[in-house]
């Protein structure tokens, strides 16, 4: 594995704080693409912007890059407001979703391009480009062209090209979505390692929750042009502040319940409700599959389907009370026959609630 040693200090840096303050972007379609988005990245932090297609996450990243003009708010890199600074002066590095290597240049020329734009001497360009290629594990492929590389290799080169100029911010716009599953996981881990070694402040846009939770220090969940919640992966998963976050991050069973202060009753069972700001009355309750268990006592249900996931098994049950489907996660040695009658119990962990 390649590591950033003291012999190669040029890519390591002290991170820069980055901030979006009440940023608005309106394409005039009736709904704002960014509706007052505020997001602060601490120096050296990797924040993932997570959300469904069309939620505005890429627009937010492009606003930070300067590739989209904003209609309101501020963009700060370091101490300076940069809304009126052109892209080429913002000192950022960016990796795009689609492969964006220059096809007529070799890998080494691609990586050295940003240094050339900064008038770095040819000899130093070669050394630094080679160093960046070594960092992404492609030091031997400097003489190849983009069409001679796999998708994963091309994105590694794009990453080296983005890093070689030692930018203050690294922006990754769904960099893994065009890759197959195995390469995606490998490169995801590689990005995290390199980001930690270089200490560069990074914004990572993705629609893949597993990717976001695995790679980020903090995750910002976006919906309809707004940030719903910012927090560590654990906070998002265990303490979602809205029904959208509870539903979007991880698997949840959506069950009808009745909220009464800090308690919610689901199928006659009282559970602690996470703060939601909702008034008392009928609500939807979001219960994780691992917060349910197959038990001796509990709600009567019939097994509909079961799937083996390696370390655990997930079984879908139809509740006898109302016919609703729920998914339960349990140990692999609890094998359940299709159609068998079982009981399912709540483990009593706090649950998120939202509009019915």
């Amino acid at each position: 594995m390649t590591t950033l040693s003291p012999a190669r200090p040029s890519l390591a840096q002290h991170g820069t704080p980055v901030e979006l303050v009440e940023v608005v972007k309106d394409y005039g379609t009736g709904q704002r693409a960014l509706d007052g988005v505020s997001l602060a990245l601490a120096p050296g932090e990797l924040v993932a912007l997570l959300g469904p297609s069309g939620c505005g996450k890429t627009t937010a990243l492009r606003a930070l890059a300067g590739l989209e003009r904003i209609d309101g708010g501020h963009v700060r890199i370091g101490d300076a407001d940069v809304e009126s600074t052109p892209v080429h002066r913002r000192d950022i590095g960016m990796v795009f979703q689609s492969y964006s290597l220059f096809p007529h240049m070799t890998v080494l020329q691609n990586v050295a391009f940003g240094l050339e734009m900064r008038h770095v001497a040819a000899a130093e360009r070669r050394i630094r480009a080679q160093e960046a290629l070594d960092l992404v594990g492609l030091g031997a492929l400097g003489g190849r062209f983009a069409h001679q590389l796999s998708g994963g290799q091309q994105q590694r080169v794009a990453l080296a090209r983005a890093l070689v100029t030692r930018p203050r911010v690294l922006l990754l716009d769904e960099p893994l979505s065009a890759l197959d599953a195995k390469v995606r996981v490998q490169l995801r881990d590689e990005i995290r390692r390199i980001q930690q070694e270089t200490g560069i402040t990074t914004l990572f846009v993705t629609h893949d929750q597993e990717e976001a939770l695995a790679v980020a220090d903090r995750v910002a969940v976006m919906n309809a042009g707004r940030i719903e919640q910012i927090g560590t992966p654990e906070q998002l998963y265990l303490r979602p502040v809205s029904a959208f976050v509870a539903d979007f991050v991880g698997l949840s069973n959506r069950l009808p319940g009745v909220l009464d202060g800090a308690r919610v009753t689901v199928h006659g069972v009282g559970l602690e409700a996470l703060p939601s700001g909702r008034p008392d009355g009928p609500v939807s309750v979001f219960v994780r599959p691992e917060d349910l268990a197959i038990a001796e006592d509990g709600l009567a249900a019939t097994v509909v389907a079961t799937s083996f996931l390696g370390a655990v098994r997930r079984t879908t049950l139809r509740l006898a009370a109302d016919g609703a489907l729920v998914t339960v996660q349990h140990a692999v040695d609890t094998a359940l026959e299709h159609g068998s009658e079982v009981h399912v119990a709540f483990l009593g962990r706090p649950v998120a609630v939202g509009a019915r």
Partner: protein
Amino acid sequence: MTAASVRVGRRGAGASLRRRGVGWLGFAPFGVYVVLFLGIPGVIAVASGFFAADGTPTLANLAAFTDPVILKDFWNSVWVSAVSAGVSAVLGALIAWALTAARPDGALRAVVDSASSVLAQFGGVMLAFAWIATVGPEALVTRLIQAVLHVDINGNGPFLYTVGGLLLPYTYFGVPLMVLTFLPALDGLKPQWGEAVATLGGTRLQYWLRVGVPVLAPAFLGSVILLFANAFSSYATAAALIDQGGIVPLAIKQQLTSETIVGVANTAGVLALGMVAIMAVLMTGYAALERRTRRWQR
């Protein structure tokens, strides 16, 4: 391997052969057409350059290439084709570039695409007449220029009936052909390349100089070659405007219909051989550039 799998394998191979056979059967009418009306006449035309009047094989006919009249015809063909291809390429590329600002599925693109497809095929007597009616000795524009600017554009004789006059009709069908061939290359420029240059610290000018132009260069040169070849082999429009020789296709016609020969047998065949040789070089270059364009814009 089991007997069943062997049977399945044989059946699979048989089906594949049948599919291939049906494919060839479908291709057959076109193949026969190409062989009858392009392949055989082409081979006869070129081969005739290597036979003497009595039918014996000879290389003596190649001496025709040292004849000043024939050399002049080739030179005229080359420069008229080159200049019209160059002018058409620049004008067509500018129009195509302007079109990239329009929506790919919009009405403007559809109209220009259709118009270019028609105009690129506009040639022969009709095109010649259109130009005669426009800038010929008694034509509309000629009269207008005379009246407004007091300049007779045909003062030294009707320029449209000269080799240089062919530049106008050749450019006329060259421009839309350039739009058709170059627009896909412009569409193939990824917006991310421009954005990547910007995030790496480059300006828009640097993007065009270091990425846009180099990436487009093979497609542009390929299109220029295509325009050159199109003009070089064009016959009908020139035949309608010019009576005698001047360019190679007209010289071939003249050699086929006239008894005045430059001293060697089968001069038309020799001229055809020269044209085929030039076209072969051009098409080889075009194919190489086309391969590079496809690879770069995948």
